């Protein structure tokens, strides 16, 4: 289906009917030690939704990499339950006081599937590849933007220098897009070739890739360097994994039920109930780390430059109703500007709820007392109006129309403008909008820097994701300090203050916590839930006969 489908599948997995029923513990990484002994052999059939048309982790931003990353490559670190980095290819590391120098001690005896050795030089080649313009890296590169250079102490010790303090550097290295690729492959292949057959050191090797059709992986016999947390070692049990691109939600669900596939990476929310009640299927609905599904206000221009108007609009949005209508019971309402499973999430930075009376009172207070023929508020002849550009996907979920209807109830006019994907992107970075919705998933609270630091406001230097154009010196200060310390108490305090400040400044309306829905057949045992992305890891999964 069309690439805009990634947006659609994201939007389609929106808030559910009732409050979240008990779902799998967030971020637990225990291996499901099934009653019987793991069986070696067999091929896992996995259905995914949309082919990113390129599989080089460093070169794409598609969600697919959250699963493929741990199939094909290994990362330097792996997050533990608390969200702190734990040893993987990097056995240990030291951070300089000014948080600008990071010294990594690398695991020995690790090789890539093309024979290249994993050493300090390999890590440097990877970092340079992520930042090389030719790679056109949309995500990996920006995450390690502060990287300046590094000094190879010896084959298994690397000293990395950053241009400025950035403690989250360690955490982001655990993400699927920042897996280590073979330096030999990086040197000898063009970006296009890397797209076609990337080479990693992971438990499986890419054996076939037909665009828009299927990807095949085979077990790597001599794999023996999983993250310590897996409490397991040796090669994978599965002979291989066959992935099919199945764009149509209905087809993906029914092919899972009919047994054509043993796992699917994207379960549509509307089919969650059916999977839960299906005896031979296992349902997974895991919350994710990052920034919840939120409606951003563009605070740099009217009408949302006025705090009262923002607080009024926030009070007018009936989040529970939205979640009830479009989430099919699989979403939890967001409480603040961080997903609840994110490290240093502050539960008492609570966002005020739905209160139409307060909304009307605030709007009157802000001077929007007049009413035009259609019932919309006016002030000095101008109508209280906001533009919400939306891209057309096959099934635009009705969240925009719900918000439009709820805003109208308090006399606030919201125009939902349907535009093609390319125009939306142009408007986004030009700041030509009043409302934009979105979600940002990463595995560190530093997402607040990405979303609300004035440094992240799109300008001529970088595109930036601070779409609310919020620029608050206090928040900037706290976020900068948070990037310089690893002291969790200090971080808890800093991030707490940021979250509370955001609740006061109302740069947007958080609606529901981001979560990922996937499902596996009961025949598939030993699936680990990744701590960074809450997606399935098949390293030590196995198929019962």
């Amino acid at each position, binding site marked *: 289906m*069309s690439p805009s489908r990634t947006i659609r599948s994201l939007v389609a997995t929106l808030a559910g009917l009732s409050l979240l029923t008990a779902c799998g513990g967030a971020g637990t990484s225990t291996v499901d030690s099934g009653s019987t002994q793991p069986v070696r052999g067999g091929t896992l059939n996995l259905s995914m939704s949309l082919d990113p048309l390129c599989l080089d982790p460093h070169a794409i931003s598609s969600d697919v990499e959250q699963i493929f990353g741990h199939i094909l490559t290994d990362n330097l670190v792996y997050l533990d339950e608390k969200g702190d980095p734990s040893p993987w290819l990097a056995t240990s590391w030291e951070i300089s006081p000014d948080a600008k120098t990071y010294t990594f001690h690398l695991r020995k005896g690790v090789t890539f599937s093309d024979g290249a050795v994993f050493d300090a030089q390999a890590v440097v080649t990877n970092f340079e590849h992520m930042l090389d313009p030719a790679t056109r890296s949309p995500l990996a590169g920006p995450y390690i933007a502060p990287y300046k250079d590094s000094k190879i102490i010896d084959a298994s010790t690397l000293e990395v220098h950053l241009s400025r303090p950035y403690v989250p550097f360690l955490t982001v290295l655990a993400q699927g897009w920042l897996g280590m690729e073979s330096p030999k492959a990086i040197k000898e292949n063009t970006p296009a070739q890397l797209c076609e057959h990337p080479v990693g050191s992971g438990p499986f090797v890419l054996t076939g890739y037909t665009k828009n059709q299927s990807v095949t992986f085979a077990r790597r016999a001599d794999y023996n360097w999983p993250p310590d947390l897996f409490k397991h070692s040796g090669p994978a049990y599965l002979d291989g994994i066959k992935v099919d691109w199945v764009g149509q*939600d*209905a087809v993906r669900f029914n092919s899972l039920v009919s047994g054509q596939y043993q796992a699917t990476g994207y379960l549509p929310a509307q089919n969650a109930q059916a999977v839960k009640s299906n005896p031979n299927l296992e349902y997974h609905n895991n919350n994710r780390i990052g920034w919840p599904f939120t409606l951003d206000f563009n605070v740099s221009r009217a009408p949302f430059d006025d705090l009262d108007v923002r607080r009024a609009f926030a009070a007018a949005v009936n989040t529970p109703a939205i979640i009830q209508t479009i989430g099919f019971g699989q979403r939890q309402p967001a409480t603040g500007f961080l997903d609840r499973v994110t490290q240093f999430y502050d539960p008492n930075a609570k966002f005020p709820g739905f209160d139409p009376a307060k909304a009307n009172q605030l709007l009157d207070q802000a001077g929007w007392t007049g009413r035009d023929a259609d019932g919309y508020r006016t002030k000095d002849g101008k109508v209280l109006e906001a533009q919400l550009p939306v891209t057309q996907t096959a*099934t635009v979920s009705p969240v*925009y129309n719900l918000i439009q*209807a709820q805003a109208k109830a308090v006399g606030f006019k919201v125009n939902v403008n*349907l*535009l093609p994907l390319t125009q939306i992107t142009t408007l986004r970075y030009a700041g030509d909008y009043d409302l934009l919705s979105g979600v940002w998933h990463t595995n560190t609270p530093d997402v607040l820097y990405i979303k609300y630091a004035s440094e992240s406001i799109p300008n001529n230097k970088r595109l930036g994701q601070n779409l609310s154009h919020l620029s608050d010196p206090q928040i900037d200060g706290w976020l900068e300090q948070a990037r310089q310390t690893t002291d969790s108490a200090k971080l808890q305090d800093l991030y707490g203050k940021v979250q509370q400040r955001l609740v006061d400044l109302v740069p947007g309306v958080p609606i529901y916590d981001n979560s990922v829905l996937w499902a596996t057949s009961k025949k598939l045992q030993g699936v680990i839930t990744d701590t960074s992305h809450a997606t399935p890891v098949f390293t030590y999964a196995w198929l019962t006969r």
Partner: protein
Amino acid sequence: MSAFTATAAVLPRTSRIRLRPGLILAGLFVAVVVAAALVPQLLAPHDPLAIGAEGAFLPSGGGHLLGTDESGRDVLSRMVYGARPSLVMGLGATAIAVTGGTLLGLAAGLGSRLTESLIMRLIDVVLSVPELLLALVVITLAGAGSTNAMFAVAFASIPSYARIVRAQTHIVRRSTFVEAATGLGIRRSTVIWRHVLPNAIRPVLVLSTIGVGTAISAGAALSFLGLGAEPPAAEWGDMLSNGLQYISNDWFLVAVPSVAITLTVLSITVLGRELRRRSEGRST
């Protein structure tokens, strides 16, 4: 050469036009669709956009004759309100295509040999690009929404009408009654205006009734690919592609719009064919 046409008619043609039941049904259905398009508020029990409190995927019965959709909205009301965009797509696209096609066809048919080959090459170019790619390009770059979808479908079907009009113009231009009219001493422009144009255009008008059906179908296809009407407007194609996502939850959501689109296209085509059969019967 005196071709004497005395061969007896081996097969006496039954020209008596019996009102076949199919025709009546088609006429009735189209009437219902047109009524729904004109005064939806009278026929629809609920507001098509209102999020029903009773919840989603309700089966038919109770307050909702056809049940509710994934957002709890009343399917019957949305179907009634969906009639107008489909008819507007069908009639609008065909009207634009026929006018554009006729102008081009006449220009090619009556103009000089150079203008004719130029226009025919242009038509070849537009025809060479598959209809859907053309529509995709127009919509994706001019923005989705039912008006752009209508123009896209119209633009893609102009060539076929142009070709028909051009061929018909050539036939009429060389026919005996045009020569006879010139023989009467009538000015060339009057002959064209009085005889060539009306006779060249008539078959196209008849064919266009069948074109309406195809345009509705093409519009639904665009909605299926996500390029049709903008939400939350109720539009059959959109409801259909939406319904497909929830096919395991409630197959009604797919069945109702599919049947509606098929029956509408079918009945318009049946009426169109009847019109063509009658007019051909008269003009040969």
